[in-house]
């Protein structure tokens, strides 16, 4: 008992039993080329239709074309947070490390989508509203979402023990997910108080079909891209875990 022996095979078996990353690995290897292909072709098609075929908006002119990037990024930004929260909840309740890998890998992607949404929103706002930033309810919510992502990413950074970091991050993701609807609601409330309904909105059914179809292509393209990125990041996360386990084994055998 004086020396601690950690059998790498045992460790791997444990990891395997809990999360089955090996199975995930094989499955993801099959999905990856397809999602890559879909991402490229759908985005290319969507961009072509959106930039060259679809007509300019009668009010906003050519600048409306920014929605082909802005809307997919903004919707997926929230979607990724939902993925993160669900994965965290699963891993927290059933102690499944794969959920942690998914949540950890998803967070930076979601943060980048929020940045894209904010920047394109600002670029769009300048010609439409005459100002780079407007405290519109949606923009504000997206900004807050960005802060939530930052908090989540930060908590992974500060813990030295990755097991603790995973649990703490899971709690933050779940708390954030519970709070997000409340925050959205409060921001909407605040916005209607201060702004009135003067902002032009592209709400659901009023979008013209010529705009909607490329938008859907773009959205699906973004989604495929998200899947590809997520798979690559989770794979590298699993590899990283294996490397860590091997390092510990080596250091203890010395």
């Amino acid at each position, binding site marked *: 008992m004086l020396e601690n022996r950690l059998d790498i095979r045992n460790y791997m078996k444990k990891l395997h039993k809990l999360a089955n990353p090996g199975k995930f690995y094989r499955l993801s290897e099959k999905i990856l080329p397809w999602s890559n292909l879909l991402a490229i072709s759908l985005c290319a098609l969507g961009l072509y239709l959106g930039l060259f075929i679809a007509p300019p908006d009668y009010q906003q002119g050519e600048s409306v074309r920014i929605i082909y990037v802005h809307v997919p990024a903004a919707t997926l930004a929230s979607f990724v947070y939902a993925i993160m929260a669900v994965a965290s909840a699963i891993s927290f309740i059933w102690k499944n490390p794969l959920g942690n890998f998914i949540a950890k890998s998803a967070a930076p992607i979601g943060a980048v989508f929020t940045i894209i949404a904010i920047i394109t929103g600002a670029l769009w706002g300048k010609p439409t509203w005459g100002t780079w930033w407007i405290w519109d309810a949606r923009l504000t919510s997206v900004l807050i979402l960005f*802060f939530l992502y*930052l*908090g989540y990413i930060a908590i992974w950074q500060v813990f030295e023990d990755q097991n603790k970091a995973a649990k703490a991050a899971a*709690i933050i993701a779940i*708390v954030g997910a519970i*709070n997000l609807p409340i925050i959205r609601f*409060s921001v909407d*409330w605040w916005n209607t108080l201060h702004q009135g309904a003067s902002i032009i909105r592209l709400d659901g059914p009023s979008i013209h079909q010529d705009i909607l179809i490329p938008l859907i292509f773009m959205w699906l393209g973004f989604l495929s891209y998200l899947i590809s990125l997520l798979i690559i990041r989770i794979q590298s996360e699993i590899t990283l875990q294996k490397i860590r386990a091997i390092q510990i084994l080596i250091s203890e055998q010395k």
Partner: protein
Amino acid sequence: MFKIFLSIVKRDLKLSYKQGNTSLNIVIYFFLSVSLFPLGVGPETELLSKIGPGIVWVSALFSSVLSLDKIFQADFEDGSLEIFNLTAIPLEFLVLAKALAYWLTSGLLLVILCPIFGLILSMSSKSILYLTITMLLGTPTLILVGSIGASLTVGLKRGSMLISLLILPLYIPILIFGVSAIDASINDVSAKPQLLLLGSLLCFSLVLSPIASAAGLRINME
């Protein structure tokens, strides 16, 4: 169990009375940050009375988040938390007890001092009244929500910056409802919905944040 709850509250009150400076620091910080705003935006009474509620509320947010990382720290470091964990009281109730004691020594002071800040910022007596009511409803929620961040960062050396990043976004609804209740009262509109929302946020966090905080403490005690 209720007896243990009370003795924890009593001990924390006594501790903060003996140490004194922590709650005094919060009040001074609060006071200072409220008085900095007129220097920043100019002394016009009309402007100040308009943005006064926002100033007080934002200052309350910052002062609570800055001091909150201490709420579990001492008990964590000297091992008291482990002993609490071995008593008949669940960790969730311990969190509640500590949050209550903490509120009594910091939040309540801020609420009592609210009228003075209102006067400094030349707010009307009616909006001062509503400021006090919203603070009374809001400060416990601030502490309860903040305790989640405090519990997660309790074992960390550089936790206090992180806690702001984690918790401030979650404070937004409280800020919005708190300030808009006062705005409503200024505009002679009923502030009832905002107050009810603040109350429901309090109830909500009263139930959920002890659970989350206890989970956070368990992680760090492992």
